[in-house]
């Protein structure tokens, strides 16, 4: 079949060219349309249900919203687990779905359940689905600035103009506002005056609500015309509110202005945005799940350009975080790598073939393999990002191999049959066809082994699966493409390109030198087999000895190139104090000469994808281009300098990066290698248990970064209503609560409608009457008897410490004890630690512990790999066996696996890299190509030994040397191209290189050592032949 394909292509070159021409443009189209982002989305597949309940404490939210929701949402199909968090004013329920479930399907299932679940919530509390975006979605942050404009003006522009316009851009899921002041009509009533006028708070609320209505009254006909009738009554100004009558006494109305003050002021807020010490208004564009970040940002920027014309002339939209920078940098690094690889491969191939056009024929196959890979990626919905492109980058050395083998054989055959062609005994086409079909099946086998041995990567699950599946896809696709190209395009190219004066290999000085050297070493090896075999043995033993010294990590960190400074304060921090600290920090950060811009956020942007509490700041530090930095400053050094100049007491400095942090923020699972979940019904007890667990685990060897989540720490003032007292006044709990809620907390009673804009109207007590614990005791409660009673007489006021945020899982309250493990095996650690905890920590009834964490992934990945790698090796072995039909020969070839493995380990050791999943993927990639040379040489050894009659030991050696020499040129070329193609990766410095390097190292080290197999295989093969001879002779 392969032969028919080759011959068809050779006979109809026009069709081939047209197809490849189309492929070229198709590929270009695919490349520009494929979703691009910097890193794959490794977060869990989660749907967020966000419920806003203004002013309510975490406790209330947990009991009345989060718990009923998470219980009601159980049984949504495909859900792995339900995690939830209740914080001040909002609840977030995260439904974590199995990875295989379709995202939008999952969302609609949630919506179905939600309609029932919502009925269990307090009236007026409406749960909504979070944006259809993940942590990666926050692609573009901007500030809205205008000189001399107030924060509420800018906020109005952002809220009512910019936000909705940007939200309409295709691919944008949500645009959220952060910082500034939301304009609000504030009715501050004076309880003294209300007492004097005998007006209760509920009267005021009622009156305001009823004073803000527009109605329509159909039409009247008059003459031949009809007139639409409207009743106008919307509140439009402070005056309108002031003149609302809240009651009357003997015909004299009491207006709101009689009992309080009406003004326009800022709405209560939980977020502040600060730019270099100055407060600003900003927004964040959240991209829809699965969109092309590059294109979305591009469209957003276009829209902003349009919008700016419509803004007041002094108002600007200035971006302070733009994902495209990172994507450009990452893609730039990859582009650089790919181009360098191409050039280097050319530079190696051409001198050895001594024919430029042959080199070009080989290298032309490369871009086509890449294009075909991209086309397939587009339709298989594999996004383009650092991981998937790395797959291509590490495969390049192998991609050219097929072309090399094909072209080299065509070249050799053309040379061999040069006379026949001249004499027109054979046509060029025939010669090339023969050459191609000669190696066709070998090429297939080689690629199949490579592809098969990479299969275990597909079996990786969850986070590591999400990271490496794209890579496995692209690598496999590119390899498959390369073999198709080698069988279809390359022969055709050879037909046209391999022309002119063809030099025999012997005439090429480089090849001569190679042959000479190879022959000398091979002969020595064949004469000193035992001594020679000590070399690979010692390399192998040595590598086993150094392996324990190599560190271990889950994934090498990805450098995003920008800094996210995330200081965390105590949960009791007030917004004002937090803002003061943020301003100090931002001002200091700005003084660093490397810093371009500093924008800090306290608390949340108004989106479900940002659950940050106010004690947590997120400051994005944008850096200037590296060439403007002081001499000798690196990012690490800069962070250290910044850190040491920002030692504010009481603030924990955390330095991280925007994307990984966003993923962390939304990842509700345990992010450290090991964690203990403490479940139970009472928060205080849970905290107690987790602290005990912490102190027990502290004593177990290997535990580092130990941290038990502090649940309590937010001060609460609690009114405990005395039921016997209120009964005396004929009051109900609700009457008192209404006063507490509205008088102290204030409530948005209604919303004005002013053209496009809408502002809330809220009623609350005068500020100084409720701004201190003391004043709170003077809040009046109206009684049915007409008297107004201060609340201290109806309720006890307590100061208590309560939770800042309540976490739960599957409806049970939960706390984490987090830790990392260093210096020992994780499973052993968990076993020892859980045993110690079981012995020493008393867990009361109703409470239980669960050990979990990233170690599960690693253990799972390890288990999978332990099974799958041998299986893939076995399949590999079978493929080879099917080719040679000899177990012993296949075993000879397989010696390459341990030898190359040890080479990879040595290089890791020398370069100071850690073992990580990336490294293991690199090894798996290596196993696929390690045996290729062995296969190649064994095929020729077989042929030679079949062709020659071997009688003596010398005959054996000669035959072996002949066979080895015959294949050393392609073997050398394929190995050397694999090595040099990986070299540029090692010298890369750009963004993303830190992910690619660990994957390249095993191949690089392994392939260097792999050169030994050029000798091992002939050595063992000839040894066997010799023994056969001896047996026969004997």
């Amino acid at each position: 079949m392969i032969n028919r394909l080759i011959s068809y292509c050779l006979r109809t070159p026009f069709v081939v060219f047209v197809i490849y021409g189309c492929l070229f443009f198709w590929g270009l189209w695919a490349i520009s349309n494929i979703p691009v982002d910097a890193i794959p989305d490794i977060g869990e597949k989660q749907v967020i249900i966000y419920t806003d309940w203004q002013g309510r404490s975490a406790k209330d939210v947990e009991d009345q919203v989060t718990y009923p929701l998470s219980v009601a949402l159980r049984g949504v199909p495909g859900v792995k687990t339900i995690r939830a968090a209740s914080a001040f004013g909002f609840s977030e329920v995260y439904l974590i779905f199995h990875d295989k479930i379709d995202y939008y399907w999952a969302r609609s299932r949630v919506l179905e359940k939600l309609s029932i679940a919502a009925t269990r919530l307090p009236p007026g509390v409406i749960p909504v689905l979070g944006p259809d975006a993940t942590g990666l979605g926050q692609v573009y942050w901007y500030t809205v600035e205008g000189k001399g404009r107030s924060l509420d003006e800018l906020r109005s522009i952002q809220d009512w103009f910019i936000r909705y316009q940007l939200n309409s851009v295709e691919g944008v899921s949500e645009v959220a506002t952060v910082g500034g002041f939301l304009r609000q009509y504030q009715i501050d009533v004076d309880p003294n005056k209300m007492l004097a006028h005998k007006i209760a708070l509920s009267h005021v609320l009622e009156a305001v609500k009823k004073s803000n209505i527009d109605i329509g009254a159909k039409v009247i006909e008059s003459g031949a015309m009809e007139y639409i009738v409207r009743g106008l009554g919307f509140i439009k100004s402070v005056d309108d509110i002031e003149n609302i009558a809240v009651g009357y006494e003997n015909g004299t109305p009491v207006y709101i202005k009689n009992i309080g003050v009406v003004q326009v002021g800022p709405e209560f807020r939980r977020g502040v945005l600060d730019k270099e010490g100055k407060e600003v208004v900003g927004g964040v564009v959240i991209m829809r799940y699965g969109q092309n970040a590059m294109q979305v940002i591009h469209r957003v920027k276009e829209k902003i350009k349009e919008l700016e014309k419509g803004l007041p002339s002094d108002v600007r939209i200035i971006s302070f975080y733009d994902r495209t920078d990172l994507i450009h940098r990452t893609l730039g690094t990859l582009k650089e790598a790919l181009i360098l690889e191409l050039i280097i491969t050319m530079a190696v191939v051409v001198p050895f073939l001594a024919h430029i056009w042959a080199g070009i024929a080989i290298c032309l196959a490369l871009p086509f393999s890449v294009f075909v890979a991209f086309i397939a990626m587009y339709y298989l919905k594999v996004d383009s990002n650092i991981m998937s492109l790395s797959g291509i980058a590490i495969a390049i050395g192998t991609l050219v191999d097929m072309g090399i083998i094909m072209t080299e054989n065509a070249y050799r055959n053309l040379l061999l049959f040069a006379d026949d062609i001249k004499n027109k005994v054979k046509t060029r086409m025939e010669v090339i066809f023969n050459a191609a079909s000669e190696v066709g099946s070998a090429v297939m086998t080689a690629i199949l082994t490579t592809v098969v041995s990479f299969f275990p990567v597909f079996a990786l699950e969850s986070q590591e699966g999400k990271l490496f599946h794209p890579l496995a896809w692209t690598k496999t696709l590119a390899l498959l493409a390369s073999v198709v190209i080698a069988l279809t395009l390359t022969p055709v190219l050879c037909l046209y390109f391999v022309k002119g004066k063809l030099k025999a290999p012997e005439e090429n000085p480089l090849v001569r030198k190679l042959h000479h050297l190879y022959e000398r070493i091979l002969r020595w090896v064949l004469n000193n087999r035992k001594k020679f075999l000590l070399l690979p043995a010692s390399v192998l033993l040595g590598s086993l000895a150094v392996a324990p010294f190599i560190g271990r990590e889950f994934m090498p960190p990805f450098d995003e190139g920008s800094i996210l400074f995330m200081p965390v304060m105590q949960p009791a921090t007030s917004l004002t104090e937090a803002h003061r600290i943020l301003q100090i920090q931002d001002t200091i950060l700005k003084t660093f000469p490397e810093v371009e811009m500093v924008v800090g956020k306290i608390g949340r942007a108004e989106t479900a994808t940002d659950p940050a509490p106010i004690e947590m700041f997120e400051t994005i530090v944008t850096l200037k281009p590296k060439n403007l930095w002081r001499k000798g400053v690196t990012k690490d050094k800069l962070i250290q300098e910044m850190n040491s100049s920002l030692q504010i007491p009481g603030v924990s400095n955390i330095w991280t990066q925007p994307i990984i942090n966003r993923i962390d923020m939304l990842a509700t699972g345990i992010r450290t290698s090991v964690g203990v979940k403490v479940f139970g019904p009472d928060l205080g007890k849970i905290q107690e248990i987790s602290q005990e667990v912490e102190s027990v685990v502290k004593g177990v060897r290997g535990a580092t970064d130990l941290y038990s989540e502090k649940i309590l720490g937010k001060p609460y003032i609690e009114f405990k209503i005395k039921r016997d007292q209120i009964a005396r006044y004929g009051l109900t709990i609700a009457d008192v609560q209404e006063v507490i809620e509205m008088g102290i907390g204030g409530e948005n009673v209604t919303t004005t409608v002013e053209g496009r804009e809408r502002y809330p109207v809220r009623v609350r007590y005068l500020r100084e009457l409720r701004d201190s614990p003391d004043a709170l005791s003077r809040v009046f409660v109206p009684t049915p008897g007409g008297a107004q009673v201060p609340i201290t007489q109806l309720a006890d006021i307590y100061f208590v410490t309560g939770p800042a945020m309540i976490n739960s899982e599957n409806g049970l309250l939960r706390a984490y004890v987090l830790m990392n493990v260093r210096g020992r095996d994780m499973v052993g650690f968990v076993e020892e630690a859980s045993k110690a905890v079981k012995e020493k920590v008393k867990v009361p009834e109703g409470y239980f512990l669960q050990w979990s964490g990233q170690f599960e992934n690693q253990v799972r990945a390890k288990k999978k790999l332990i099974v799958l790698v041998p299986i893939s090796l076995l399949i590999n072995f079978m493929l080879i066996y099917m080719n040679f039909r000899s177990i012993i020969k296949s075993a000879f070839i397989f010696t390459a696996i341990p030898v190359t493995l040890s080479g990879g380990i040595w290089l890791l050791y020398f370069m100071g890299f850690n073992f990580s999943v990336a490294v293991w993927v690199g090894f798996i990639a290596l196993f696929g190509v390690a045996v290729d040379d062995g296969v190649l040489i064994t095929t020729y050894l077989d042929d030679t030994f079949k062709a020659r009659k071997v009688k003596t030991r010398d005959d054996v050696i000669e035959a072996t040397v002949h066979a080895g020499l015959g294949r050393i040129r392609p073997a050398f070329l394929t190995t050397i191209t694999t090595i040099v193609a990986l070299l540029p990766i090692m010298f890369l410095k750009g963004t993303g290189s830190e992910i690619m390097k660990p994957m390249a190292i095993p191949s690089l080290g392994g392939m260097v050592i792999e050169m030994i197999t050029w000798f091992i295989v002939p050595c063992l093969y000839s040894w066997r032949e010799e023994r056969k001879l001896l047996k026969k002779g004997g």
Partner: protein
Amino acid sequence: MRGNKRFFFAIIIFGLTLGLIVSGGCAKKTEETHGTKYWTCGMHPSVRVSDAEYKSGKKNCPICNMPLIPAEEEKPETRVQKPEEKTEGYYGCGVKEEGHCPHCDEGKPDAKCVCGGHSFVTTDNKMNCPVCGRALKALAKGDAAGIDKSIVARVKLNKNQVELAGVRTEQVVRSHLTKIIRTVGRIAFDPELAVAQEEFLIALETRQKVANSPDQDVIRRADDIVAKSRIRIRLLGMGDDEILELEAKGASQTNLLLPEDKAWVYAEVYEYELGWIKLGQDVKIKAVAYPGEEFKGVIKSISPVLNPNTRSSKVRIEAANPDKKLKPEMYVDIEIESMYIAPDGSHEIPIVPKEAIIDTGTRKLAYVDMGGGQYIGKEVSMGPEAMSNIWGRDTKVYPVLGGLKEGDIVVTRGNFLIDSQSQLTGGMSALWSGATEIKQRTEDREQKTEIEPVETKHKH
């Protein structure tokens, strides 16, 4: 050929020896991790540097660059659930540092020092030592004795940190304290009282008239009427002094009915604030009708009974009424300025500004500046919030009843940060995998190459 042979042998030997060295090294390393001594940073207890690492040059804290201090690995303490007799019920980490205490600079170079901050004293054993993060254990009798029980935290900051936290301090001074009680009232229109007064006066007159009557019965009845009508006007709100005045004057208060030069203001004072009200106190009155204008008054009487409906007591205030502006039944806002008197009866008491107190719900803390960047957190007991004209302005203050003394310098700004610092937990970044990576990487770097200080031109 010869050369090749030697070359291969060399490689084999190299490989084997390397393997041996390396596996030997491996054994040694595991031995080291069993050692109990390690180094940590006084500011960042999460930092742990092994002895070997320390000796190889990692002598400063990777976070703040302060010199590391030695520490002993402690086996996890089993908690004592109930304080035994010898322990007095106090808990501390009980670490005794030889020589100079690295945390508070107390102690002499060659004496054993029990650092107060370390032997953190608390009756609650649920937490860890704020200085070193160890689990607390019950303290022996002697250990707990020498320690100021009101000290709950010790924090040491360097100069830079003090500056960054924006720490401001104020001295605890003795001063008068006032409290303003706000309430509402109305201008009296009280015919009932006016009539009662008339009746009382008539009764008095009658009594006088019958004074010489031979009939003792008549006198007794007249006395009876006087006494009863006296009770009546007292129940309607008049004080004893006022009644004497009324007797002396012999005329009822007509301004209870119509505006005159003086007006009566009836104010409602709630039960829980009654303690602040005394006869003769000055009162500021603001009428809704005359914004910005202030009338002055004096408390004349406090009603002897409480209104059960409102839980308030009627306070009668006589106010100056220039131009007869205050008209009966007008609503007025009332501010009564009252002096705070300490439980021991003194008028001048040590006060702290309101901002100096951190109310954690379970206790009230103030941080005292001991100089040199040292701060001590003290538990304070206080009276009610009040005002004092001190430090040149009206300031909200608390009277100190215990925990602080006059002359102590308390932190009024940045105290929340200092308090947080004392509660900081080291493993915070364990929450953020992304962040730990950066931390680890910088640590790795430090192990390999000492970072040379980069000239920083920035100023704080």
